[in-house]
């Protein structure tokens, strides 16, 4: 999948700059896929795609 398409899909599921994210669950095999809470929504996705999201830790206001 082209990077621009992946970017659009991630945004449509709420992954935009400034949103709080938290990893909630991991799968049994290789910890994949993962369940991530972004703002108030929980999204399940594979690590491969989650790698496209840049996260800074401890940026709590």
């Amino acid at each position, binding site marked *: 999948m082209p990077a621009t398409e992946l970017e659009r899909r991630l945004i449509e599921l709420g992954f935009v700059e400034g949103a709080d994210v938290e990893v909630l669950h991991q799968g049994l095999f290789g910890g994949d896929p993962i369940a991530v809470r972004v703002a108030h929504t929980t999204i*399940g996705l594979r690590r491969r795609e989650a790698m496209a999201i840049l996260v800074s830790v401890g940026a709590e206001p």
Partner: protein
Amino acid sequence: MSVTAPTIASPGADSPASASAPVVALVGNPNCGKTALFNALTGSRQKVANYPGVTVEKKVGPLTTPAGRTVRIVDLPGTYSLRARSPDEEVTRDIVLGRTQSDVIPDLIVCVADASNLRLALRLVLELKQVGRPVLLSLNMMDIARKRGIEIDAEKLSRELGIPVVTSVAVRRGGTDALLAEIDRRLAAAQAATGTLWTTPDATALRRAQKEADRILASVVKGQGKPDSLTTRVDAVLLHPVAGLIVLLAILFVMFQAVFAWAEPGMDAIEALFHFLGDLVERLPLPALLTSFLKDGLIGGVGSVIVFLPQIVILFFFILLLEDLGYMARAAFLMDRIMGGAGLHGRAFIPLLSSFACAIPGVMATRVIDDRRDRLTTILVAPLMTCSARIPVYTLIIGAFIPDRQVWGLVGLQGLVMFGLYTVGIASALGVSFVVKRIIWRGKPGEPFMLELPDYKLPQVKSLAIGLWMRATIFLKRAGTIILSMMILIWVLATFPQPPEGATEPAINYSLAARIGTAIQPLTEPLGFNWQINVALIPGMAAREVAVGSLGTIYAISGGEEATDKIAETLGSQWSLATALAFLAWYVYAPQCAPTLAVIRRETGGWRWLWVTFFYMVTLAYVAAFLTYRIAVAFGGG
């Protein structure tokens, strides 16, 4: 821009009075309670094409508003955006933008949003506003949001968005009053659609819209800080890497157990009813030929199929329940990696699970898979899941040939064989998809798996009941049309021509059925099939379960009246064990279902995948039946 004149719907497709009624389209994110709202608005009057699973196709239902206006409500597949990444989302996009050729062009768009999960919905609203049609926002499931301490300033939200905002509780009496009143008001205003300003958004536009949605959200919503505590606690177990998988297996086990155990009283009752009807007909002073037609052809044939209604209803009950609870997305999440090993996408789990009920809704449900290759693989293997139409055939053969005894004092041998047949089906599906992925689509990278895991919701009894009612109706319609006509055909073939005067052999040996069955005998001889089986296989093409009724009719006519209720016993005395096992093996694979093939052709948009499915399944069926027969004979089962 020219406006397409609304085409007159074909008679029966829609009630004539409503063909020109204004159209109100429900649009929203997946899991926003849109279908429950649709059910609350239209009740059971909705018209649904085929089996609705998860909504993958538009559904239309009539509604009379408080002002007495007749309106057609259209329920559309859930989506996050009008960009349409998968076939089900294309349905939504085309109808919202008025691109369809049908007369379903929305006069009003109702954007349905889960009030406790507004963030992504607001971005969709901003997109819908660009379409150029009147839009209103309905904050659904307000009761749940309030219970969780979420307060929404609807008036302020309406000002910020520049569109009317109403609240709704689909499940409560009067919960849709505000929505209905607003629909009336909007339609009375009769705003004409303006030209659409919508263009496919790029990442920058999406990002800007989401930030705008976040700003509005922050200004109108209070108390959305904490996640749903029930969902968090339940997910600690259900999404636990080990416990979650164990629970999933347990749920599946209970589901299949229930299909067999719970259905029994209902099946006994239906059986007794048809038995009674048969006896009744026998006592009537009718010509022998007519009695035979009514008793063996109609009542016996259709009854042998309708008896499976309880099992089908129970299976669909579980599927709808898991869907409404919000568990299906979790099941897909848990299975993604495991199914990925076999070359299937995590999202394929839901279509494949539906295929246990029937491959038709299963194939249709693959529309939620956005990648074409992943979708085709799923369609290809969906018919290998043991559908409910195979249950009658399996039950009959197992009852006749597998002794009813306990194995290791724990499980019944018959149940074990049934379980084995399901397992063979699943294993074959995984094997086929593995081969397809490695050989046909070698080297193509896998598509991403991204899926919202919605908060758990209590299923609504009414919505569930309507869902089940729709499925039961579809099944009974099928029994009354395809299956009925096949049973009549079989009876005619098995009865005519009548035996000559002074004939010594059973009457059926002189019939057309016997001639056809004998003619294809050379082909099925290596599988251990006799001509009676060959005859039963032909109508089985229309619907698998017909084979049971056909065998019943054939043996009833050849073996005298008393054989009708004793198909199993008759088979037990006429078939060898090897033949019975080969017949089961054939049924695991054979593409004996014309409606499924038709749906594959429709969903893939051509004949090619129909033929691929047909040939690979026939080949597997033939090979499996051949091997089973030979091995069983070698072990003395001939």
